[in-house]
């Protein structure tokens, strides 16, 4: 039991470090490499890849989504819990979809990723509308750019990872 606990603790620390480094890179390094003000959401990409290819901290609940969402909330102007809630929901839905869809080809994973990002960004938009009185003007363009920019990075990584099909077999 203690070995299992140590393993889980090690995984939590690992994901904490990964997401922390990614949020720093996202909010500091990519500032100059923005497209119409949008930067890639590296945490979102990392979380999606973890859901697909790794068992995560626990197979039961996507606890890694909590860590991912926590850092996104800390380094944003929103209060704690917004990104956590949205990413947990998105992760749960993605896991359920992956159980149903047996074939995990590149196209299917890209489509799932687009849905993942759209779900999260739409949730953020709705939150801003209701809590910060921010309207929807320019939202469609912003979301399109965000999805495209994130898809560019995630599809590159998906291409590389899908060269190793054993990774998917281990997950199943």
């Amino acid at each position, binding site marked *: 039991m203690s070995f299992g606990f140590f393993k889980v603790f090690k995984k939590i620390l690992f994901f904490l470090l990964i997401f922390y480094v990614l949020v*720093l890179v996202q909010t500091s390094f990519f500032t100059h490499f923005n497209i119409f*003000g949008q930067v890639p959401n590296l945490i979102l990409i990392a979380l999606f890849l973890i859901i697909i290819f790794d068992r995560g901290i626990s197979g039961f*609940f996507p606890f890694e989504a909590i860590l991912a969402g926590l850092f996104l909330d*800390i*380094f944003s*102007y929103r209060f704690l819990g917004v990104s956590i809630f949205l990413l947990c929901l998105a992760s*749960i839905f993605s896991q359920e979809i992956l159980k149903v869809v047996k074939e995990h080809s590149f196209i299917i994973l890209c489509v799932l990723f687009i849905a993942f990002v759209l779900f999260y960004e739409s949730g953020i938009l709705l939150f801003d509308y209701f809590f910060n009185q921010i*309207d929807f003007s320019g939202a469609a363009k912003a979301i399109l750019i965000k999805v495209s920019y994130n898809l560019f990075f995630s599809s590159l990584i998906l291409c590389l990872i899908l060269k190793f099909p054993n990774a998917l077999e281990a997950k199943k």
Partner: protein
Amino acid sequence: MKKKLFVLAILVLFFVAANFFEKEIKNFFYSISQKSQIALASASENIFAFYEIFFKAQDLQRENQALRIEIQGLKTQIIGLKNLEEENRFLRGALALELPERLELLFADVVMKNIADDFILINKGAENGLEEDMAVITAEKVLIGKITTVFNGFSQVSLITNKEIGFAVDIQDRDCMAKTKGIGNSAFILDFIPREKEIFAGDYVSTAGQEAGLPKGLLVGEIVDIQKSDLSVYQQANLRSGFQIQEIQRVFVVLDY
């Protein structure tokens, strides 16, 4: 699935409670991340500058030439303005009027830039005497934004392009007031310009000093183009801000004026 949603509901309650300590939690992470973020931003700037040298050499040359011509014109203007300033000082003295107060400023470093959400984080906060709604400017007195959230050692500054920010401005030499409106993604517009007023692309816009924390006369930006509609009593204009957010590393907070 039901179990997962139940765990999610418990987590939501937990984090709603955690928001009582939101400022302390955020302040802690900002303080440990500060040096790393500044280093990463500096690395990003160096890489981008390297890219610009190779791919934008011709554009840079053209921009350089245009700026040289503009500087010459501005130097001439400065001479004229200095004469006016002397005359103004003399007349105020003669009429026993007080000189306008200088701005009381506090210097701060930019720790984080969130361009997508139009805000930056600076490394001064409540312990330095900062409060919400204080203006933040560059060294050249160009308005960047205003403080919207104050932590113990840091402050969140919403940029003038932020959707929540709008303030009254004067359009120079047009005897006209209007209001800015941030539309996000580093863009903002000028609204409520009376339809009968003639304004032109290239006109400069400065703060009117009507809101608390915003002194009069801070440069806001330049009019890029104008939209007139027969159906509206007002016209709108697109603005270009007087600063490039990617280039800003240090700012000043207006403590008093």
